């Protein structure tokens, strides 16, 4: 599975995408694992209320199971339009 980041999440973490660490069942689990990397990851992902998620390009809540998804996107609330 691949993790992709957008907007200030991408800027704070310092990369567009990275391979997902192993061992997470839900989006929330994955967040915990990623925060454990410290630095930009910990800062960008610290406040879950400021984040939104998409699994294989569909918006989900943080309790969603990762299942066989191949891409988890983590980004701020959208501001288009």
């Amino acid at each position: 599975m691949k993790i992709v980041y957008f907007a200030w999440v991408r800027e704070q973490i310092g990369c567009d995408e990275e391979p997902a660490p192993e061992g997470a069942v839900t989006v929330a689990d994955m967040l915990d694992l990623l925060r454990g990397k410290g630095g930009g990851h910990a800062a960008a992902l610290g406040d879950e209320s400021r984040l939104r998620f998409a699994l294989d390009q569909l918006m989900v809540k943080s309790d969603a199971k990762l299942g066989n998804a191949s891409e988890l996107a983590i980004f701020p609330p959208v501001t288009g339009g």
Partner: protein
Amino acid sequence: MIDVQVQTERFDSGAALDALAQTGAGAVASFIGIVRADGDVAYPDRRVTALELEQYPAMTEAALRSISEAATERFSLTGAIIIHRIGRLEAGEPIVLAAAAAPHRADALDACAYLIDRLKTGAPFWKKQHFADGSAKWVEAKGSDDARAAGWE
């Protein structure tokens, strides 16, 4: 007819409305969003010179299509068009066109509002403001946008 476009270049709003007018409609309603120089209410002193529009390319078109299809299911429409620009947009430039065509005006007007309200909270775009003083800041999502979108649920 559903048509969604994501592009860097300017769009031709007249051509889009003409296309919708030819779907057998009696009414075409449209919304255009524009980069405002005084766009950041939190910083009234800082003039916005440009916006940078970022998208999630793999998801954007599907999200816009899903919003358009939901509009055609909810309202009696003959067509819907969404065009959203990405990249750097100067103050005064159009950002987005959302338009709906219907036999009757209430459906066209309501569907147009629906398209832009849902797009504001459900399509993966992010705006970064560039100010005249050289600083930049990501636009914060507004609670009022969530409230408008939730009003359609």
